[in-house]
Structure formats: structure tokens, C-alpha cells
């Protein structure tokens, strides 16, 4: 296994519009790496390329295949018909999901459906799902959207406590600082 994800000269266009052009980066597979860039710079596209959800038009990405990503998308992506516990247990089991939800302060809301949860609670369920999954890398796209300061800190601590590499997209310096030391990759 590589200890680095290598993004080599990757280009990606959608409908003739180049989102990433000849982009290269080395993403360390330890600690926290923050991916930054202006709105529309291609952060989410790179995120999807790293996850294998899109294929590059040119270039290559080395070091991701064979790893098990635990993902928090920009949207919560919760199953509307499933409880907080069932959502968090997707891909893992109820014991791990209960532990993750409790860690994030949702121990009393296990049976609630997404429509019964506030925006911040839904976000925490999405984070709990990623933590319960016990992946090899934590991929986070704007993970703290809708959370108050205390819950941001609790969530960041829980992510760090997982002791796996974290790759996070955020445009907010204060949110990046919640992870303590981190590497930074800028897409421009």
C-alpha cells in the first residue's frame, strides 16, 4: 500500500467546461489534509475523482484503490425512511452506530427519522455513519455545515479519535483549525 495518494496531471471537464486542468498533488495518508480553493475551483470534483465516483479525462490517481473510504458528502444523504440508527449503521452494525451517535450527542435520538431531526442533527448522523463504518480514510466534504461551535468541536475530536487519515474540504479557516495540525493542498 502507498503511504501517499498521488494525483498526477489530472484533468476533468463537464460539458466542455474544464473543472480541473493538469492538476497534480501528493496527499499524505497520515494526519489531516485540508483541501482548499475558491468556489468552483474543483474541490468536489477532485473529491469524487479520489473516491472513484468520476474518472479523469487525463492523468492518473495512484494510492486510493484497495482502500475503504468513509465518506461525509456535502449533502447528508440520509435514507428518509430509515431511523438515525439505521442510517448510521449502513455499512457497519448497530453497536458501532450507536456508539458513534452517542459520541456525537445523539444517543437520545436513535429512533428518529431524518424528517424529525434538525439540520445539525442530520449532519451529525452523516458523520456518525462515516465513523461507524471504520474505513481506512475519512473523506469529508464541508463536514461541519449546519453545526454549532460546540458540535463542530465534538465532531472534529471524534474524527481525530478514529486515528485514520482525514481528507477534508473546507473553505473555513476556523473549521480547519479544529483539526489542529494539518497539511494543506490548494486548488486554484
Amino acid at each position, binding site marked *: 500500500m502507498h503511504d501517499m495518494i498521488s494525483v498526477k496531471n489530472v484533468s476533468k471537464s463537464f460539458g466542455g467546461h474544464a473543472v480541473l486542468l493538469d492538476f497534480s498533488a501528493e496527499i499524505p495518508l497520515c494526519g489531516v489534509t485540508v483541501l482548499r480553493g475558491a468556489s468552483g475551483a474543483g474541490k468536489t470534483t477532485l473529491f469524487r475523482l479520489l*473516491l472513484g*465516483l468520476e474518472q479523469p479525462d487525463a492523468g492518473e490517481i495512484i494510492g486510493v484503490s484497495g482502500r*475503504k*473510504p468513509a*465518506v461525509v*458528502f456535502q*449533502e447528508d*444523504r440520509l*435514507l428518509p*425512511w*430509515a431511523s438515525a440508527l439505521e442510517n448510521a449503521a*449502513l*455499512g457497519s452494525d448497530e453497536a458501532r452506530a450507536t456508539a458513534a451517535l452517542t459520541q456525537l450527542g445523539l444517543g437520545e435520538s436513535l429512533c428518529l427519522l431524518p424528517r424529525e431531526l434538525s439540520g445539525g442533527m442530520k449532519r451529525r448522523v452523516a458523520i456518525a*455513519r462515516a465513523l461507524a*463504518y471504520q474505513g481506512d480514510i475519512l473523506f469529508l466534504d464541508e463536514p461541519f455545515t449546519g453545526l454549532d461551535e460546540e458540535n463542530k468541536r465534538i465532531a472534529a475530536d471524534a474524527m481525530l479519535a478514529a486515528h485514520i487519515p482525514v481528507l477534508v474540504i473546507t473553505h473555513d479557516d476556523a473549521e480547519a483549525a479544529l483539526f489542529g495540525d494539518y497539511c494543506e493542498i490548494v486548488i486554484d
Partner: protein
Amino acid sequence: MPSKRKILQTALIALIYLAIWEAVSLLVGKELLLPSPLSTLSRLAVLLTQGETWFYAGLTLLRIMTGYAVGVLLGVLLAVLTARSAFAEALLSPLRAIVKASPVTSFILLALLWLSSDMVPLVISVLMVVPMVWTATAEAILQTDPRLVEMGRLYGLTRWQIVKKVFVPSVLPQFLAACTTSLGFAWKSGVAAEIIALPKQSIGYMLYQSKLRIETPDLFAWTLLIVALSMLLEWLLVRGMRRIRHDA
């Protein structure tokens, strides 16, 4: 359990309809044209004491419900196929359009040419149910949020788990609604097919015989029985569906 108030309200509504029926029947003044509720209900009571009524009703139910079940199954299979394959959709959608647009009597007459009279109501039920279940289910499959499917894949769900945890709950409301609507159509068209195809042991045959012998109270009584069975079927289906929704 329905409340006392609800039962009273239902009884009152039934009484209003019976009173209107009685009044119109008195106005018409000819049992041959419009029998009174009393003569219809007493005729129905007599029919219900006869074993052959239940036997014929059972066979009618069996034919139509078999067709309904086959139609639902076929509708789901076609929905999955056409939602997954653009070619299958292009290939099969003209057939769906033809079945939807053609008068049911055309199919009944054609089916009579090709099949035994016993099979006609069954096949007609299938033809009524398939396009409804097919269309609704295929639309629901296509409307399933692809982001949830993507998320399921990333979280290591197998194809079967994605079907069970994402597609089935997403498709279920539209599928169940189509099942309820198509049951009424299957029932009405199935009985109509019996009236034309005349399988000997059927409600449709008895209905036709009443018309032939100008026994209007019998005609009304059989029609009431058809309506009652249809309502019973729908009630059972809705109860069953509530359970499925609850379990899903």
C-alpha cells in the same frame, strides 16, 4: 377499530342512498326497469344462501386475482427491465402504449378467439394491471435518488442490499398506489370479460343470464355482490399494504 361516530355516519350515508334509490324506484314504478332496494336485497339474501353463488364468486375471484397477481409480477419485472435498459424501454414502450390506449372489449374479443372462455378474464386482468404497475414502478425506480445509491455503494453495500435498503423503500409508495388502483380495474374488466366470454361457472355468466331472462332484481343483486367483493378486496389489499409499509 372504527369509532361509534364513524359507524353511525356510514350507516346514515347508506340510509340516504337507500332512500334515494327507493324514491327513484317508486317514481319509475316498474320493477323490471328499476327494482326497489327491498326486492334487490331480498334477492341478494336468497342468492347468498345458495352454495353455487359462493362457488361461482370463488371461481371469479380466483380467475381475476390470479390475473392480478401475474399482472403485478409482470409489471414489476418489466419496470425493472425498462428502467435499467433504454433499449428495452424503446422496444417495449409501444406495446405498453397500445395496451393502454386500446378498448378493453377489443382485447376481450381477441382473447376469446385465442383462448378458452375460462382464461379470458384472467388474461384481461393481466392486461389491465401490467401497464399501470409497470409505468408507476418504472417511474419510481428512475426517480430514486442516485446520490443515495452512490452512497450505498461507497459504504460497501452489495447490489442486493442496495435494492433492499434504497430502491424498495423508495419505490414502494408508488408501487402500492398502482397496485390499489389496478385492482379495481382488474376486477371490473375481469367481470366484463366474464360477461362477454361467459365461462359457465362465473358471476359474469350469472349476470348475463339475469339480463337474458330480464330478471332485473337478480341483475341488481349480482351487481351488488360484485361491488361488495370489490370493496372487500380493496379493503384487504389496503390493510396488507399498510403492513408492508410498516415492515419496510
